[in-house]
């Protein structure tokens, strides 16, 4: 049986290209085998395709004018609206036309529109600080609905923009979304309230964190590279961040927290402006501000003070070291 091909067009605008670079780290199967095995026909990708210049502008015209059908539009990077709403901070090369116009035209033609990365989803790092380029996401401007396509946008398949958020995105998040769209489709119930696919957004970065035992006993790191929990002092947002980073590895075996630095909640709208330094936990009266997701405050404080009092010496010592100084006791099995 030959399945119908799923056509995919990928555009990049005001981002860093890092989500594509991350996607190229897909393994078993790799990127092109994934596309091939799921019938995904890559019409054009700026990093991967042979076609350049007029070969591409011809393709874009064909899609806009309905001569070619487009199943999936992937858009990487934020959309810049500046200066003064003109979008001229990114004129798509060779077209004399702002990317702001192109994305509106193409999204109206595509069956699905997928935002790749937090820039495309919500504006992301490009919209940090004074947001000099007036950057926004496809359907969000920070955590407000709107953005380049507007709050009421629905794709031809009836869905809002699918927000595969992350800075960068994990190769699995992107490719699993594309495989699902090609194979079975996604429904509104498969997305969370910020449009993120729930298969990764229903998890917390805290789940499976290698520092969980330190968290349980509030044995905290005070400097980057120490082994302890980074929530109390180093700004870690793993208990609030929606992603499965510690239950599926990055680059073979990694994650931010296993790399010795805090989770900065990069799948969330407005992660780029935490209102404090990224690597420092704000405190009120010595108590860290910010609770683990779904945790009642009074219970958290009660449990934290109890567990802090019960911290085993091993965890107290190892939390402040960059390697295991005191290993877990080996049970003496000769004495019963």
């Amino acid at each position, binding site marked *: 049986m030959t399945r119908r091909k799923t056509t995919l067009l990928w555009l990049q605008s005001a981002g860093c290209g890092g989500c594509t670079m991350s996607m190229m780290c897909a393994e078993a199967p790799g990127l*092109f085998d994934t596309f091939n095995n799921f019938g995904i026909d890559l019409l054009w990708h*700026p990093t991967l395709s042979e076609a350049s*210049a007029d070969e591409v502008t011809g393709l874009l015209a064909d899609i806009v004018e309905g001569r070619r059908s487009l199943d999936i539009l992937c858009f990487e990077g934020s959309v810049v609206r500046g200066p003064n709403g003109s979008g001229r901070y990114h004129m798509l090369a060779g077209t004399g036309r702002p990317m702001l116009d192109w994305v509106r035209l193409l999204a109206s033609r595509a069956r699905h529109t997928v935002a790749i990365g937090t820039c495309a989803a919500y504006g992301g790092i490009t919209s940090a600080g004074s947001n000099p380029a007036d950057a926004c996401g496809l359907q969000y401007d920070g955590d407000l609905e709107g953005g380049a396509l507007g709050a009421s946008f629905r794709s031809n398949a009836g869905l809002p923009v699918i927000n595969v958020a992350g800075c960068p995105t994990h190769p699995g998040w992107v490719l699993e979304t594309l495989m699902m769209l090609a194979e079975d489709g996604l429904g509104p119930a498969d997305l969370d309230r910020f449009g993120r696919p729930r298969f990764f957004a229903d998890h917390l970065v805290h789940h499976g964190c290698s520092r969980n035992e330190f968290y349980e006993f509030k044995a905290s790191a005070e400097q980057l590279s120490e082994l302890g929990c980074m929530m109390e002092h180093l700004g870690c947002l793993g208990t609030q961040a929606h992603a499965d980073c510690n239950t599926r590895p990055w*680059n073979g075996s990694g*994650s931010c927290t296993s790399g010795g630095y805090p989770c900065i909640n990069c799948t969330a709208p407005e992660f780029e402006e935490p209102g404090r*330094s990224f690597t420092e936990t704000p405190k009120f009266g010595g108590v860290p501000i910010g609770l683990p997701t779904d945790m009642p405050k009074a219970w958290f404080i009660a449990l934290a003070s109890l567990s802090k009092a019960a911290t085993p010496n091993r965890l107290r010592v190892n939390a402040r070291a960059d390697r295991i100084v005191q290993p877990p006791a080996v049970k003496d099995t000769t004495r019963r």
Partner: protein
Amino acid sequence: MNGESRRIIAGPFNRVEGDLEIRLDIDGGKVTRAEANSPLFRGFERILEGKDPRDAMTIVPRICGICSVSQSVAVARTLAAASGVRPPPNGELAQAVIHAAENIADHLTHFHVFFMADFARPVYEGRIWHEAAVRHFKAERGEAVKAAIQARAELLHIMGLLAGKWPHTLSVQPGGTTRAPDARDRIRLLAIVRRFRQWLEQNLFGDSLDNVAALGSLGDLDVWHRAGDAGFLRLFLTIADDLGLAEMGKGPPRFMSFGAYPRDGAHLLAPGIVEEGRRRPLDTAAITEDLSHSWMLGDTAHPSRGLTVPDEEMAAGYSWCKAPRLSGQTMEVGALARLVVEGRPLAPALLMGGRGNVRARVVARLVEIAISTLALEEWIRAMVPGEPFITPFELPDTVEAEGLTEAARGSLGHWLRIEKGRIASYQIIAPTTWNFSPRDQSGQPGPVEEALMGAPVLPGETTPVSVQHVVRSFDPCMVCTVH
């Protein structure tokens, strides 16, 4: 037909990082004038104003998803210079390993995914090497394309062990790195590098890395080329001979490196300048950015005093890119420049009349892969698990600092001013800002604009394939260029 005079606007110019538009005047079958337009402005330098200087560690790497670690290293050096902290020996080694892994991965991506695909185009049908080029390098389908992407993914397992993830790590810090590998991690790092080395020797070089790194002259390279047919480097040399790629894309006869991979006060590849074959020390005080042909407002200034004020009217100029100059001159930067400055014997021999060219840039990148993969193993072996990898740092309230490094594509500099504990100014000059700069007030074209002069154009070509070879031989990173 061939003698016609016309103007082409080529874009979106792909298989570069980011968006690029090249405007060409063509006359008599040749490019007579080129303008490189970097069409995207994001304004990172403005985003950073007023922020806690430590937050640059999170924000600045996100300028670029392909040179992210290079940006991290440059921030780390800048903040280290501001605070006076020095990484311990392990920290320098781990930074070098993380940084080299990215640079090697970038070179690998450039050759296999970005550059070689153009030789598989139908325009070259009938050439003796075309079938091999199609089989190995056809975009998305070539066997070498797929194999190289897998080898790259496995090489980047180094990031999983030492940097948490790639791109956009916070592990590279002013005082070292945040993940202290233990004995198991160290042996696993060696396993990754040795496996990668094996892949390179079997696929890219058809020879040992030592032999490739030891090539000392054009004669050596020629003998090596004819000694067999194994390895994609040999396929490229065959193509380069047939198409005359050594005569194509000649840049300025001036090269610059900020120095790559410092360890114990020395660099694996030294900093410096080579101008018309003469070597002199690097003096970053002589750097200025000229805005005469940019959509930017302000005067020519050293980056420590530079401004980023976009001209919203886009009145004068043709690019968001500023035009950096050293003592008023353009500089070519990149792997070729690093090897020329280091004085590796093969690199000067690859120049034509003292100028870089398409063949030289590509060969230099591959030779640098060999040199730095050998160094990776040495650095990992030199790590001492149990000794510290990081030193804490404190920033003064008011200070100015400079941070320099070499990204895959060349010299990357950051210039920071902290006032009252906040970022008062942060200016960045990236490698492709040098190579793809627009003209300056004296009308001097940027390096790629100069290199495109005289590129041959075939009758009827709308995006001349020679132009594609020349542009991609620089491996431009457009997202870094304007930032």
